[in-house]
């Protein structure tokens, strides 16, 4: 098996890297693929607790690179989802405990066994970021429609390109249709226009994400969750299916079409 290593990154913290990693990993296994999520945020690990796997950690990524622990021993199998595994970060070590070279080796080993290797990148552009992207084949950039996040995302795109990563796709997270409608939040087109990257998907702001994270369950298993639905669609896209991007809730589709007609006419 020859899988893909996808790094999930954003520059800015708190925009949803870990949540996205957890949901996409889970959704991909729901599609019947094998996926492993790698937490590279050494010292501030969170993917375990978001996934509800915090009590199952025995070894971590630092044990694998320095402690003579086999990669397979450190992988935690998620019993709820067939084919889903987690490689946790170390909580008490420094970022420098892993080198980009070692990270690349881990990714190469993992993609022999898995269809998808999802690397959850830490915030920032220092060592942790360099480690996380070292073994990546492609990148998913998470940005929310706020100036700080878009600015950081732009910086990240530049750094990814400089590192030789060619396939960089954007997920716009936490978009609020109501604010977009009244012109107080950047829209999908605005962000694509500014960042000039390919769009992978759009996830609406959704309280159910917090509710499911409270319980240690990814939102994709909640059929009522709109964010969960968005993540399931993104996972299908990653899996090679063509799935149209939903722009701002179906309810104002006609409204948008009319507005666009007016916009065109007024040009």
């Amino acid at each position, binding site marked *: 098996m020859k899988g893909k290593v996808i790094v999930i990154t954003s520059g800015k913290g708190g925009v949803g890297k870990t949540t996205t990693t957890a949901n996409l990993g889970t959704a991909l296994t729901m599609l019947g693929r094998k996926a492993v999520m790698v937490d590279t945020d050494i010292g501030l690990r969170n993917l375990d607790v978001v996934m509800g796997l915090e009590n199952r950690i025995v070894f971590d990524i630092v044990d694998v690179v320095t402690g003579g622990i086999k990669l397979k021993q450190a992988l935690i199998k998620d019993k709820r989802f067939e084919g889903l595994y987690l490689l946790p970060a170390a909580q008490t070590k420094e970022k420098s405990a892993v080198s980009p070279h070692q990270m690349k080796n881990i990714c190469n080993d993992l993609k022999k066994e898995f269809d998808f290797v999802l690397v959850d990148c830490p915030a920032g552009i220092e060592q942790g970021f360099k480690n996380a992207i070292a073994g990546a084949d492609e990148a998913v950039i998470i940005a929310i429609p706020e100036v700080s996040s878009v600015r950081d995302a*732009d910086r990240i795109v530049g750094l990814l390109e400089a590192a030789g990563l060619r396939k960089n796709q954007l997920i716009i997270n936490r978009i609020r249709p109501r604010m977009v409608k009244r012109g107080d939040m*950047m829209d999908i087109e605005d962000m694509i226009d500014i960042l000039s990257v390919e769009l992978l998907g759009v996830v609406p702001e959704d309280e159910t994400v917090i509710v499911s994270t409270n319980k240690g369950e990814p939102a994709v298993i909640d059929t009522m969750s709109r964010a969960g639905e968005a993540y399931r669609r993104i996972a299908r896209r990653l899996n090679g299916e063509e799935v149209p991007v939903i722009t701002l809730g179906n309810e104002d589709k006609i409204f948008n079409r009319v507005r666009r007609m007016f916009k065109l006419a007024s040009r």
Partner: protein
Amino acid sequence: MLEFLAKLFWRDRDRRGSKEVAKERLRLVLVHDRTSTTPQLLEALKEELIKVIREYIEIDEESLEVSFNNIENSVALVANIQVLRVKKDLA
């Protein structure tokens, strides 16, 4: 009642498109980020430009504008210079 209406109207006008402000600010800051330049660099460049151009053309130094612009995926250096007079002795 009137106050309420005025507030509503004012609020609407005041707040329409805070995203436009965001986009405009982002465009500017990203140009500097992408080219790793600072406003100081532009200021220095502008002064040098004036020095060179002044030798050939009389220009309105006050109205001279130098900025980076995003044109599709690349960055352009745009200078807007008002010419007052071409120096005769050089023409």
